[in-house]
């Protein structure tokens, strides 16, 4: 992967000037390359990585395994696109194995998520069955540990 993208994945707020220094290229080139990635849709947005367990909020997340019937013409894409459009669905993936779609669904309460599954998701044509798991605690998201690692134990000066 392009070094530039790796830097942005580590810290999307890094200034163009600093990125330019790290890559040893002019700042204008960094700006142009980022603009190009955005235009091409490779970069689809920038978000903060939150430790939501630290927030005092009413929210539950469920991981839902969905078995579906692939449709003529569209295959899995038609049903997957349809499911993905629900704002409750935060992430959706086509999977190999014993089920087809893996959804990450958010709601304010358990009841709300249950209602989404029974009233919106399950009745969809092509959805054969669902299996819902509620998330209890987050240890790592997007490669970032959600608990503090122990502090730097190195000596402050060493040979």
């Amino acid at each position: 992967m392009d070094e530039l993208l790796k830097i942005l994945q580590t810290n999307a707020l890094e200034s163009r000037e600093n990125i330019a220094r790290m890559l040893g290229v002019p700042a204008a080139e960094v700006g142009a390359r980022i603009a190009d990635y955005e235009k091409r849709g490779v970069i689809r947005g920038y978000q903060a990585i939150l430790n939501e367990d630290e927030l005092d909020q009413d929210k539950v997340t469920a991981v839902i395994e969905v078995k579906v019937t692939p449709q003529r013409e569209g295959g899995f894409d038609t049903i997957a696109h349809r499911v993905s459009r629900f704002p409750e669905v935060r992430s959706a993936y086509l999977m190999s194995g014993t089920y087809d779609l893996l959804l990450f669904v958010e709601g304010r309460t358990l009841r709300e998520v249950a209602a989404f599954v029974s009233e919106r998701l399950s009745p969809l044509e092509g959805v054969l069955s669902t299996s819902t798991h509620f998330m209890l605690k987050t240890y790592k998201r997007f490669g970032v540990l959600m608990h503090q690692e122990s502090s730097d134990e190195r000596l402050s000066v060493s040979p």
Partner: protein
Amino acid sequence: MNGSASLRNRLNTTVRDIPRSGIRDFFDIVSTMKDVISLGIGEPDFDTPWHVRESTVFALERGATHYTSNFGYLDLRRALAKYVRKAFGGEYNPENEVLITVGVSEALDLALRALLNPGDEVLYHEPCYVSYRATILFAHGVPLAVETRAENGFRLTRPMLEAKVTPRTKVLMLNFPNNPTGAVMSRADLEDIAAFARERDLIVITDEIYGELTYDAPHTSIVSLPGLCDRTIFLHGFSKAWAMTGFRLGYACGPAELIEAMMKIHQYTMLCASSLSQKAALEALARPETDIAEMVNEYRRRRNYIAAAFADMGLESHRPLGAFYAFPSVAKFGLSSRDFALKLLHEERVAVVPGTAFGACGEGFVRCAYATSLENIKEAMVRMRRLIGKL
């Protein structure tokens, strides 16, 4: 204490007369202060790869807690011979040409003690790692320092060696990529040195602990040059490339006669390297490419950043090509390296190491290690710039 002066007189005179490392001296000052950003740390800030740590715990559970062969576990030596062939181009028999040691420091000590008779001379280049001169003296050798220079990228050249060599010179020590300068030697540079070693019939000890950490071109080891394997002791370890400093695990590869001699000293003084560290090292060799690649990329970004920042603030520096050190010149500010470092520490709370800790010719330079987060480096550069503006 009353008896302290007389006890001091009873010390071995070599040990008594060697000063403590200048690094230690500086550490004592820095450790009393708060909120210091340290560019003085000569070890990686990365964690040891998780699979290595996890498998060390497993090794402990399984009971790998006993003495190993004096040479070290044979499976580790086999894996090392394979790795050294692939990464450095040296051919070694794991049965009798590889010795596992407690870090490169022990390996270096063993090599010198195995080779030197009192009065034998050792050529080494300065600025260099803090232990070289002391280790030569402890082995009753005579250190011959060859000064490398910034204008030359701190590379070693044949004329520099010719100016110092004598008929009593037995050993040539090399350390590239270099601590503290970040210098590396190209294949052509090394060919000159190799020819010199062959003509003068010198034993070469090459400390290539930073061999994996080069940023603009792949590292060339002197052991890959024709005819050098037979007269060279190659030293390497896991501290830098795998961020495993505390495991204290290094190794030496060389001709069987030399390794056997080193093993004898190791056998009687150390017995063997830590069994757990050896297990960890074996796991580390399972996928070196993946473990090291991302760290190298990150070091390169930091190197680029720090080089650009020095240029912006008008601090002269040769381009560091390897290890994780920059070695800029502070001579133009009219302060000694030590005074500059103290001023930077006291006024801006940034720790760097005075170049003189690495040999007298390090005067006029400071070592800035970029083995710390980019955030720290950025802030350190802002502070350094501020200090320089006042000088």
